[in-house]
């Protein structure tokens, strides 16, 4: 029983660490180069493009809103580890990220940490500053308090919706900024990230680096999925007709979009296509609607003329649209 409870507590700790990493990653996505969990220096290690680091200690408490017995000990441990780590690398920020709404176990700062919070050392009440300074006593080379931050990430209960609500909000905000307009993207993305990163986090020799590519490409995979029909396309296609074509020819469409010998040709033709004074999306659609016959010899399938035409149009549209989406997302996150 005891063992089980401890195992659960360990799992909870991992879970928090992963989600804290996601949140920190999203906050710094533009400058991010890579992300490392259980890294050499800290629980969470973000390497930035300017070769500086953001180091974070993730400290979670299962019953965070009522149990404050260990928060001071956590604080002390964190500043000690952060102090040691900051000697080894050029740290831009040193963060204690926790789910406790009362990380100093102190009345004066309780209201400060109530919600998702980012507080630098200097913005804390004097009494809180005193508590942190006390923790640094006895450390030979204490951390630079100007870089120290306490960040609160609410994370409690066994109910996933409740537990991940702030993480989900962060992911949704990020997706919103990319302006992709894909329903359910936030949730799918959060799942992929959690499972992708969590998987590495639970391995014994844990430290595995994820570079920015690894983190961003799943978004592009979801954004370029042909099963989702763009609104623009729906003006020309009946939803059922679109679904029917995707159902029958999905692997052919995917192949065409992915095989460079083919898509390079299409991109070339698109480049030559004159769509004067039209938006990018409109030009893309025009191209697919008008140029499909050029590809008939190559993409002849055994189907009625209408389906044949729709199929080629969808392929052409998808190739160009995917290209635009990729470019758009990569720019959005500075990849």
């Amino acid at each position: 029983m005891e063992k089980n409870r401890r195992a659960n507590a360990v799992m909870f700790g991992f879970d928090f660490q992963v989600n804290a990493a996601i949140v920190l990653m999203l906050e710094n996505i533009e400058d991010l180069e890579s992300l490392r969990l259980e890294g050499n220096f800290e629980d969470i290690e973000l390497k930035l493009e300017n070769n500086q680091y953001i180091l974070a200690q993730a400290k979670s408490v299962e019953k965070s809103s009522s149990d404050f017995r260990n928060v001071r000990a956590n604080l002390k441990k964190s500043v000690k580890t952060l102090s040691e780590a900051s000697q080894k690398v050029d740290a831009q920020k040193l963060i204690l990220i926790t789910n406790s709404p009362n990380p100093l176990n102190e009345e004066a700062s309780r209201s400060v940490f109530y919600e998702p919070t980012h507080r630098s050392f200097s913005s804390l009440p004097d009494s809180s500053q005193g508590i942190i300074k006390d923790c640094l006593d006895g450390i030979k080379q204490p951390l630079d308090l100007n870089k120290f931050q306490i960040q609160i990430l609410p994370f409690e209960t066994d109910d996933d919706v409740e537990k991940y609500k702030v993480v989900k909000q962060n992911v949704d905000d990020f997706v919103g900024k990319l302006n992709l307009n894909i329903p359910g993207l936030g949730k799918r993305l959060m799942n992929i990230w959690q499972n992708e990163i969590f998987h590495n986090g639970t391995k014994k020799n844990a430290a595995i680096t994820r570079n920015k590519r690894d983190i961003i490409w799943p978004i592009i995979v979801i954004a370029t999925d042909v099963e989702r029909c763009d609104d623009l396309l729906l003006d020309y296609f009946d939803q059922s007709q679109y679904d029917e074509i995707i159902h029958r020819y999905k692997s052919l469409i995917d192949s065409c979009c992915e095989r460079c010998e083919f898509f390079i040709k299409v991109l070339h033709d698109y480049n030559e296509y004159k769509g004067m004074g039209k938006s990018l999306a409109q030009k893309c659609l025009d191209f697919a609607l008008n140029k499909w016959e050029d590809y008939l010899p190559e993409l002849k399938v055994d189907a009625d003329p209408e389906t044949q035409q729709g199929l080629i149009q969808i392929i052409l549209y998808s190739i160009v649209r995917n290209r635009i989406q990729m470019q758009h997302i990569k720019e959005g996150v500075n990849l």
Partner: protein
Amino acid sequence: MIIRTVYLKEGLFERRIDFLPHVSLVHSCKNSCGKTTLLRFILHGLGYNIPNTRKINFNNCEVRISIECERYGCIELCRSNSISIILVKNGVNHTYVLPEQQHELHEQLFGVNNADILNNLLGAFYVDQEKGWTLLNRGIVIGSIRFNIEELIRGLSGRDCSELIKKENRLLNERQKYNQMFSVALYRESIEEDAGSVAIDSYEEETDIELSKLILRQRRLKAELKRIDQTLSENKRFKQFVADMKLLVQAPDGTTFAVTQDNIVGLNDSIDLLTTKRKIISGEYALVSSKIGALEKEKESEYEQQAFFQTASQIEIFDRKILRIPLNPQAIKAQQSRLEKELKAVRDEISSITKNNNCVVASISDKIIQYGTELGIGNKETIPQNYLFTSNLKELSGALLHKTAFAFRLAYIAEIEKKLNVKLPIILDSPSGKEVDHDNISLMMEILKRDFADHQIIIASIFEYNFDDPKKIEIEDRLINEMMEIQ
């Protein structure tokens, strides 16, 4: 048959009780001293399976009974456990295993080998304090021993219905099964009503559907992975091919530059996209595969009955399994009534073989009427000939039932004596119970004195009875009361 002596031993205590060939009264002034226990000890010692009384466990005691029977003379029986009994005849010990060899043992005692008779002798000669005085022609004598008048009559008149009885038992068995089926069918109907539908998938079916869905998905993912791998390698080959061509191109502004694998628009992106897609899909593939594994394992252990499906409670599973059995209450009902008819026909046949033109029936009935008249139960007009087979006990109450039971027993004993020439002992436990008044008891005892003078009569009671020179066996406080002499 006459019981001469009974020797009882329990631990360090023992008691030897002698009985007279005619009347012995087991008497105590108080209740709960051991009168009934003594009577039951006798029956236990005769090889019957008799329940203990509260104070004494028969299995811890030894009983030795000396009897004198019509056929083999003096016999001694010795029983010290529930599973065997030793019969000593002419100085030779014979061991009988009980209850398997009970008939063989009783054949020695009563000189009869007809099972129909042996099964029903106890009910004729022993009247239990509780059940005995309400038992007329069918029912429990004591413990699990039953009495059935039809069986006794068939035995006495030498009529054999064993084939018909076998058939009756078979039909009864079938009927019981159909009854069970019917209640299951009703239960099934009630589940159906609750569920609002007949077409509920069984657990196996649901799991199978889930499994085939997963397998289909697994196959699709596998095909997708294969396609991605193929495209990836094609793209990489193309990339290499372009790099090896070492082309130079000129831009519109006149600058020239080399075509490398990195400046072809979309090429590296497509490879990155495919790599990521592959990672996501193989993750899904692993998940689906592990789900399939888990389901298959669950199915296997359910199949081997090691465990039930974890996704449902046992009640749900039971319900679903019941739902899978096609049961039609109407059809079962039809079968039940068919069986009922058949059963009735068989029983009628048994009854007609038993009763029709049977002098034993007439003779017993005559005796019942004779004793009934004497005891004031009725007369020739009010007691019909077939009253012997009555199943209406409700009309009889109190002393009337008491006396009727007595009259029936005496009629049986008289008939058994007439037919088999065996004088059964008459063992009555508390004949004065049930608020039967003194006059009635006197009437009953008069009959015993007159017609059964040469039978051994053993009566246990707290009352005194007016017999000539009876042997009085007093029981004070406890039945087995003498310390054994230590030699």
